[in-house]
């Protein structure tokens, strides 16, 4: 490591205001019989054990990193409910929510109902938009 590289690192830190929401998908990697996990709280494997070489930069893991680098939880993270970070964020969202007594799982049908009643935006339009946004980012 040269002095120039050190300087770059220092400058980089100074210019960046935010670390990712969670560092695990950069700092950790789990090669397990049950599959490859990006963190110890991962809900589902992102690839089978034999794909350990390629899963590190797979689209799935890159998507998780992208969301976290934007300060957001990825859909994968949101499915990993045993993660204390996810739990903390969901608890905060619940506090701020207009329906604090409803869990995100309970809230979705209510929002779908309100959408149908007021806006009538087809669900597939929302899903396509969301997927494209994720793909564009990585």
């Amino acid at each position: 490591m040269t002095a120039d590289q050190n300087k770059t690192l220092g400058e980089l830190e100074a210019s960046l205001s935010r670390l990712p929401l969670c560092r695990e998908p950069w700092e950790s990697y789990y090669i397990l019989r049950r599959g490859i996990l990006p963190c110890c709280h991962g809900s589902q494997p992102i690839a089978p054990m034999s794909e350990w070489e390629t899963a590190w930069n797979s689209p799935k893991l890159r998507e998780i990193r992208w969301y976290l680098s934007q300060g957001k939880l990825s859909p994968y993270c949101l499915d990993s409910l045993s993660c204390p970070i996810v739990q903390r964020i969901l608890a905060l969202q619940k506090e701020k929510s207009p329906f604090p007594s409803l869990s995100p799982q309970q809230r979705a049908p209510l929002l779908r109902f309100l959408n149908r009643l007021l806006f009538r935006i087809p669900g597939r339009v929302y899903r396509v938009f969301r997927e494209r946004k994720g793909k564009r980012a990585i």
Partner: protein
Amino acid sequence: MNTTQILYEMGWFPEEHDGKYPFRWMKKQATFSLKNYKVKGKKYLLITAAGHSYPEEQTVVLELFLNGHKKGMKTIDSAFSSYAFLFDETGDLQFEFRLSAAYQVPGDPRELGIMFRKIEILPPSQADPFLEGWYVCEFDDFFPFRWMKQTAKINLVTFGAKPHKYISFHIFSEFSDFSQKLKIDLAGEIFSEIPLLPKWNFYSFPLQPSQSGQDEEKLNKRGGEWTELNLSLSKVYPKKNHPEDQRELGIRVSSPEFHDDEETHKTSISFHQNALLNYQEMLEGKTKLESFPPNLGVDLYGKCNIKPPCVYCLWDRMKALEGEYVDTPVDENTLAEYGPFFRSARLIINCSFGEPLLHPRLGEILDFCQKQNKILEISTNGQAFSRRTIEALAGKPIYLYISLDAATKETYQKIRNDRWETILPNLLHLNQERKKKSNLPKIYLVFMPMKVNKEDLEPYFHLCQKVEAEALVLRPLNYLENPQIEVDRAGYHFDYEKELLSAGELEDIFRKCDEFSVKYGIPVANQFAFGIQEEADLKKPLTPEKQRF
């Protein structure tokens, strides 16, 4: 030459004793002499000294004069540490110490300068390798270590290092952002200047100029100066982060070792470069990485000795998920096959659904990881401690997490089985054996608070105290949506969903943990704080490692 030949003259108070070591105060100025000193060549005047409660903004500087000529000056710390002055005079030697300040303490009429525990004059070959800038050796962490101040010197002659190419250490930096840099120079030439990685890491530094682009001739010319290695840090740990310890604390350093192994050195360099690149890529928010992760999770063994499984274990679901890989063997060869993933890892974390201590090649795996300078994290159910496994574990750099979750036979059999009676004797045996081998592995007793074991919390602290555990680890029972796990065991109906504690109940557990932690002197590593651990580390700099999960 030992201290008895030193003639204390003016400026000294009589010898005192602090209960552990003798020492004597000097006044603002003091002298001592040596008559007819015949040892030729370079020698060190080595002192172990400390100041006292100076006003914080002031420092005390000690100047040394030999036969009227100034030989050097040192800033004296308030804690005992070593200082070295180099000289080559012989014959009748008159030494004089001059201090920049002396103080009077209430109730003591004396004007007190600094305390001397030891004054020695030794040739480099006999001098302490930790010349100056070091505090005394401590043993309460992963490796026996010394705190280094901002600058320090190592006496290479004592180590017989001259013929070797590399010097290696384990170094612990308190900074998690790579902002602390270490510079190493030998005879005025900078050999290395590197940002330090967070926590304990292995480093190998070149001692040969050829490594820094110089030639052999230059090395030979410098032979006579090959005595001191100078280390300096870009910054020390801020005192406000360790108010309980007012020493100047830079980094923790294990005893240095010397080697000629190119491969070890190259591995250390690439490991370091990868860790930096990984951090840089994370800061940049890169999603496609050129670097490899510093933590590697592995799955050492897929079979367990607790049958039926522990009440909360997701055994059947996980074994179904493992599918065709359920019997895939994983051993030291598999780890080596992981190539850059293994080489770049600092921590190897076992996450198997199975008991890792049952692995038939446990000894070989642990030896291999130790040789590769890896630190292991292993979770065990505590029912696989045998002569073989304890022998394999003792002396290895391992964080051993022992999941008991209970402190009484009654609770234990509701969660696991009726083998409680064997647990404590085995843990005591493990503790005895590790004491013979550098107090390794580090033992952490894991407690997952649930309805079934809430009442066992205080006795669990007591258990930790008995087995001299490093800490009690508070681990969350995984939150599962609609878990549908209900088990009847030892007359208790375990319903996973109902065992999860509410936020209020958990707050109560955390509050009790704080209270019992003080009462029993057992630190608590709270894994409910996963993700905000880095922040916590900064507030508690003197805790050992990041508790991962």
